[in-house]
């Protein structure tokens, strides 16, 4: 059993947190080096910190998926911009690629409205939050193809799956 020590638990707690003046820290550092009682008390504090840290990791895993997305969804929405209002009247982008008439109409629409839209800060291909916009995917493989889905946090995942996988939906892949 080490001899009793004059350093109080409160002081040792501050020492551990490095919340003392430099002079006091240095003095206590020197004392601790040779004091068994202080070392044992600090060891107990270290155990508590370690256990709490490990518990914190458990809490990490328990953070609900999509937490950040949930926060963003709860934020007040900005007022709709002119582009967003206009987009509500336009057909979907896929449909615009079909037919010359659609092409001409959309181009002229853009030209007519371009000056007033120039200062808008949205565009027709707005990416929402983390979602990426895939322009193309090509796979060269005898037996695999690509699948795109959303991660727990709303990020985009581009994943290779066996071509024999008949599940063409957005199911999360299990194993290769």
């Amino acid at each position, binding site marked *: 059993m080490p001899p009793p020590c004059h350093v109080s638990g409160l002081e040792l707690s501050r020492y551990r947190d490095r919340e003392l003046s430099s002079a006091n820290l240095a003095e206590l550092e020197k004392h601790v080096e040779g004091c068994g009682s202080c070392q044992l008390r600090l060891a107990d504090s270290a155990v508590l910190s370690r256990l709490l840290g490990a518990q914190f*990791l458990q809490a990490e895993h328990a953070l609900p998926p999509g937490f950040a997305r949930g926060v963003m969804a709860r934020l007040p929405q900005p007022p709709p911009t002119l582009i967003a209002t206009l987009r509500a009247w336009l057909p979907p982008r896929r449909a615009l690629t079909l037919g010359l008439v659609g092409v001409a109409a*959309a181009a002229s629409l853009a030209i007519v409205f371009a000056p007033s839209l120039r200062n808008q800060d949205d*565009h027709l291909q707005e990416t929402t939050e983390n979602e990426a916009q*895939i*322009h193309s995917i090509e*796979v060269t*493989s*005898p037996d695999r193809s690509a699948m795109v889905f959303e*991660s727990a946090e709303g990020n985009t995942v581009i994943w290779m799956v066996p071509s024999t996988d008949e599940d063409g939906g957005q199911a999360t892949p299990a194993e290769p």
Partner: protein
Amino acid sequence: MMIGTALMVALGLGNAAGAGLTIDVQVIEASNNGDSPGAQSVAIRDLGATLSYKSFRTLSSEQRVLAVGEGTDLFLPDGAVAHISALGVEEKKRNRTVRLRVRIEQGQESLDTEYSVRNGGTVFVSAGKRATGDSVLVLAIAPHLK
């Protein structure tokens, strides 16, 4: 695709030529063996909540600095190579997006994709199987505009 480009030009959008960016690339191994070691990155936690592999570990974490129009190569384990090119940047007040091309080659197989993602956004790309065991590689790619 053409209409999108036409509209973008009409709206004064386009590549911000000369813009520089940093690409963060994490090479992650997903496996059904063992436990995930220690503290985990945001990317791994996301993958862990998404995929049903048992363990994830970061094999490497790199930053590559690119100008628009430039590309870079990453040499991955087991002979795979990833080519990442910065194709364009759209600078807008609310949405800054980066257009990237990612091509991953492993032996006779390849995955070639082009996508746009918001500044700082992460896309996970499958990067092939490991030569031994049943683990796979995943790249977590996030561009950051300067």
